[in-house]
């Protein structure tokens, strides 16, 4: 049996605050993600889940702890491109067309003909054939996030890190994009860490849902999602889906209340 794609050991991130105690964003996070697994992280606002993703990606360095990918320790933003990052929004380069945005991670690594072929393939995978030469401002929010996803997939990463990619979309587009992500994921079988505020989104998409505590973020609990794939929106009315959603919500509610210490939300 192959080892885990991603292993995180006792990861802690603190930010110094001058002479006082450092500000602890998350503490002692340990996590193992297997090949082809789709893992979501949910938690109250400000629990450090986005920061965790940035630390894993090497955009920020951890205060302590280790990150291993395929057993190899990651130190800072290494040269190897083993992770694809899907940002929240407005991260497409406005001076580049769709295909050029997707090419960003390939330039200088593959010859241009091959790179362009790959870029076009991933654009068609995310359903954007025919929009190769559109600039980001000519695309809808949902289409922009498709390009964002294609860009991350095009570098053929070992792990795909998605930071609330659908947060800025309207409810209908968001639901549609969730279904699209299910389809794309079933075709690529990538290992994914998906950050979201939305519990139903996490359950619909994931094999496993991890609940973070309030700050400093720790792993409070984790749940395997007992729902078969392929999935459709119908599973949202499945008893197990509804129960899991309730359980996770109760935990997040407790965390939010604990964070607020009795003050109204």
């Amino acid at each position: 049996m192959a080892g885990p794609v991603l292993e995180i050991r006792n990861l802690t991130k603190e930010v110094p605050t001058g002479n006082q105690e450092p500000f602890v964003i998350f503490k002692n996070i340990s996590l193992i993600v297997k090949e082809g697994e789709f893992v979501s992280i949910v938690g109250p606002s400000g629990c450090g889940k986005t920061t965790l993703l940035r630390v894993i990606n090497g955009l920020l360095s951890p205060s302590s702890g280790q990150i291993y990918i395929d057993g190899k320790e990651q130190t800072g933003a290494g040269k190897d491109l083993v992770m694809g990052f899907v940002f929240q929004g407005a991260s497409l380069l406005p001076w580049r067309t769709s295909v050029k945005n997707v090419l960003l991670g390939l330039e200088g690594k593959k010859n241009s003909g091959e790179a362009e072929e790959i870029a076009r393939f991933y654009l068609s995978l995310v359903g954007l054939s025919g929009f190769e030469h559109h600039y980001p401002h000519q695309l809808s929010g949902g289409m922009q996030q498709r390009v964002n996803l294609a860009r991350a997939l095009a570098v053929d990463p070992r792990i795909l890190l998605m930071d609330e990619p659908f947060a800025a979309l309207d409810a209908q587009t968001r639901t549609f994009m969730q279904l699209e992500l299910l389809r794309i994921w079933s075709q690529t079988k990538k290992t994914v860490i998906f950050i979201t505020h939305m519990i139903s989104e996490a359950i619909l998409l994931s094999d496993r849902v991890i609940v973070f505590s309030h700050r400093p973020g720790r792993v409070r609990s984790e749940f395997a999602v007992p729902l078969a794939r392929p999935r459709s929106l119908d599973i949202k009315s499945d008893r197990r889906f509804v129960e899991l959603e309730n359980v996770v919500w109760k935990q997040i509610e407790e965390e939010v209340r604990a964070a607020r210490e009795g003050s109204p939300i």
Partner: protein
Amino acid sequence: MKGMLRLASIAGGLVLWHVLAVWVIDDSVLLVSPLVVVAKGYEMLFVTADLYPHLFASWWIFFYGMILAALVGIPVGFLMALSPLVRDYIAPWMTALYTTPRIAFAPVLLLWFGIDIGSKIAIVFLGCVFPILINSFYGMRVVSREFVEVGRSFRLSGGRLFLKILLPASVPFILAGLRLAVGRGLTGVAIAEWFGATEGLGYLIFFAGQTLNMPILFVGVAVFGVLGVLGFQFLQIIEDLATPWKKELEAK
């Protein structure tokens, strides 16, 4: 509609000028009608053709001054944006030079670079370099943190990050800086040619002013105005071509 309004505005201004010159002031030493200026301009362009030496003299001063200013201003602006060390080192000098009236430097530059084209280019350069430098600096500084993170998440090397993210993101700012520099550069040309010049539009205006020759004076002023508008429009076209994504963003 926009075009009509602009035409009406220009026409209205010219009519007012004519009325002021012919019926209100009625003294050709103080003001002449735009019709007289146009006639004089036509004569200097197509009959005697004695405008051209002045035009070309001014043009080359302006051209070299702008090119030098861009060659210095853009890289220095970038360096200041990328290195806090360079920024803190240069900032006091930059502020001092920027805020000192350029005309104060003119006699000194004349001494240093001679009465020929050198000192004049230096004066134009001094005027143009700061808007270009400040815009290049600002453009590179305000590149959204998210874009830089995108580059870093794709593991772009420092050089690629600069070429593929920072530079293209600053292009609109650089071009805006160049546009601002056009006006300041032309002012520089006029100032430069008031000091010991024997040709050029600035000299023409100065000479016409001394000899109370209103038609020639206004031809000189008008040519400066036309050059400014042309330069500005030219850079606007370059900007639209270089940043097709920008225009539609602004329209939104």
